[in-house]
């Protein structure tokens, strides 16, 4: 049995394989074998094709398992001044991050990193890096390329760089208050930057600067802005004042050519942006502006027809309102005409003009000029005006000479621009050629405007005028001084004043308004020991105009004497 079986197997193995298969399975078996072989070949071909495809496709999408949200930065449009000069732009800067799970030698890393970044909190750094569950931690964002290279050269594992967009302000502090600032993700936080987010829009991005639409063109003029900042800085030293502010406005369009507030701020320094001592005095604070308010009082009286320039007022006796007595600083001892009330800056005269008008009309006039309602510009909301609770006799008189009512300088400048430009209201704007400005509304008649132009010019050109130190030969400057005592504990402080000067030029056809404010100037040898605006703010405004008038293309001319009296 066994031998037969062996013999049979040997006999079968000596036959050729197909014949054996055929012998064993028949023709159908052969076909099935081929089918299986073909199937296998197809399968291998599929595997080979897939391998080839994977090998060829190259770049795999690496999926990083990061649980923490990766910060995105935003691409922002450039900001240019009215002449197309760059004020703010985006640049790529390396940001340092760490993957704590890859960091080796915690002490070594913190110590060596501390040598390059000495201002980094070592304890905090240690605490962050010791949390091995985290895979991504920002250590420092927006590092100067040179510093980044130094950190790179330390060769610390687990520390990496990522390029991010950061906002750069190449002009440092120039117009810092207006431009505002951005947050760590390059989103607008204040000023024009915030307005850009809200109106023009920004684009999220992961690095390279992209073309985010057209640059934003402001109405500011770099040259004018620098001139006013430079002169205010010099004035702060000259008169030992604690702060200064100034603006230049186009009286017809309300376009702001410059807006400066000192001490200034660098938008790229967050500590400066948040410093309360550096608030924007032009639109972030309200002040009792003093006698420059008399421009409005006289305009009101002339416009209502209750008084003319030659109407005589008896200003010899002080005005009383309840327990207050209002006197003139330099009493003339004789009745004065309305023109003289303006030129002598008589508080009593202004009070009388306001009383003659009545509280309702006085309020209505201030409302018409936009001084009673909150205002907004592209640089943010303007500090709301602080108004007296009611317009009684005392309030009427004090508001007439600029006390008891505090407004932001930009709001006051806009109101005065309306009186100077021929009588139409303007809205201050920082954008060039803004078309959505409301249609001009008339606030005072052209005659009133003309009379005020004459008075302002006389206040500078005549020897009795308080603003004579603001005169600049050839540029027909007009203006009004204001020295307002600052409110302190238990009343007004006599020695702490806000000295202001509101000027416009050229007065025969005013184009530009200049407002200069000096906060708490001291009586120095330069101001003959006085703190009056005629001694400090007026000459400062004169210096500003002498510098900016040629920049603004105002043609100097011999003085025009035929202005109305």
């Amino acid at each position, binding site marked *: 049995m066994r031998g037969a079986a062996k013999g049979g197997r040997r006999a079968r193995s000596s036959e050729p394989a197909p014949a054996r298969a055929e012998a064993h399975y028949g023709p159908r078996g052969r076909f099935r074998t081929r089918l299986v072989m073909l199937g296998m070949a197809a399968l291998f071909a599929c595997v080979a094709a897939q391998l080839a495809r994977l090998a060829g496709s*190259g770049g795999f999408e690496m999926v990083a398992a990061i649980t923490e949200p990766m910060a995105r930065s935003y691409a922002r449009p450039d900001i240019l001044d009215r002449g197309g*000069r760059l004020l703010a732009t985006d640049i790529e800067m390396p940001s340092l991050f760490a993957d704590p799970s890859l960091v080796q030698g915690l002490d070594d890393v913190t110590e060596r990193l501390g040598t390059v970044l000495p201002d980094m909190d070592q304890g905090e750094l240690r605490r962050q890096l010791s949390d091995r569950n985290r895979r991504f931690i920002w250590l420092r964002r927006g590092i100067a390329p040179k510093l980044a290279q130094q950190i790179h050269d330390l060769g610390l594992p687990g520390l990496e760089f990522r390029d991010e967009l950061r906002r750069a302000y190449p*002009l440092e502090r120039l117009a810092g208050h207006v431009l505002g600032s951005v947050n760590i993700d390059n989103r607008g936080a204040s000023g024009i930057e915030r307005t850009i987010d809200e109106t023009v829009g920004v684009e999220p991005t992961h690095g390279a600067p992209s073309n985010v639409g057209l640059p934003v063109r402001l109405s500011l003029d770099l040259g004018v802005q620098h001139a006013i900042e430079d002169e205010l800085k010099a004035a702060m030293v000259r008169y030992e004042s604690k702060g200064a502010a100034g603006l230049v406005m186009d009286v017809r369009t309300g376009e702001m050519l410059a807006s400066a507030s000192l001490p200034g701020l660098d938008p790229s320094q967050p500590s400066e942006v948040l410093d309360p001592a550096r608030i924007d005095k032009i639109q972030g604070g309200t002040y009792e502006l003093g006698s420059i308010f008399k421009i409005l009082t006289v305009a009101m009286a002339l416009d209502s027809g209750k008084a003319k320039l030659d109407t005589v007022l008896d200003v010899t006796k002080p005005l009383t309102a309840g327990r207050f007595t209002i006197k003139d600083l330099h009493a003339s001892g004789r009745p004065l005409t309305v023109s003289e009330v303006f030129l002598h800056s008589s508080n009593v005269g202004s009070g009388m003009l306001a009383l003659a008008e009545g509280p309702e009309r006085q309020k209505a006039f201030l409302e018409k000029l936009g001084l009673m309602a909150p205002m907004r510009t592209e640089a943010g909301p303007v500090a709301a005006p602080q108004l007296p609770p009611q317009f009684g006799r005392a309030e009427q008189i004090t508001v007439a000479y600029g006390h008891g009512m505090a407004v932001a300088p930009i709001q006051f400048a806009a109101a005065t621009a309306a009186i100077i430009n021929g009588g139409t209201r303007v809205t201050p704007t920082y954008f060039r050629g803004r078309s959505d400005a409301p249609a001009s509304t008339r606030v005072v008649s052209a005659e009133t405007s003309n009379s005020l132009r004459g008075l302002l010019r006389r206040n500078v050109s005549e020897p009795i005028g308080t603003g004579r130190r603001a005169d600049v030969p*050839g540029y027909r400057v007009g203006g009004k001084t204001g020295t307002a005592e600052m409110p302190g504990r238990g009343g007004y402080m006599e020695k702490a004043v806000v000295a202001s000067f509101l000027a416009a030029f050229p007065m025969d056809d005013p184009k530009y308004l200049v407002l200069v404010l000096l906060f708490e100037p001291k009586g120095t040898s330069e101001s003959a020991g006085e703190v009056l605006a005629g001694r400090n703010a007026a000459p400062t405004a004169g210096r500003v105009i*002498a510098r900016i008038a040629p920049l603004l293309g105002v043609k100097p*001319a011999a003085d025009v004497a035929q202005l109305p009296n």
Partner: protein
Amino acid sequence: MHPLTVSAAFLAISSAFLLYGLSYDTRQLEARVSAQERLADKARADIAVLKAERAHLGRPSRIEPLARAQGLEPLTDKQMTDRVPDGGLSTGAIAR
């Protein structure tokens, strides 16, 4: 084998090669495009830095002292005239 089967097989294989070739070319082109894009991004980033640097170097607080050192001053009314005098402008009159 049937000639139709052979030609179909040939067609299938050749179109597979063709498709492979096309997709290979496309990948090459895509790689080139992304390389160009990276280059453009880099150039844009460089331009942004250069623009910022130019603005920083041209900032008025730097230019002004340089201009003053050259003896330049703001224009005054004395430097302006309405009419050219009869004799015309004499050249070199502006020299200090």
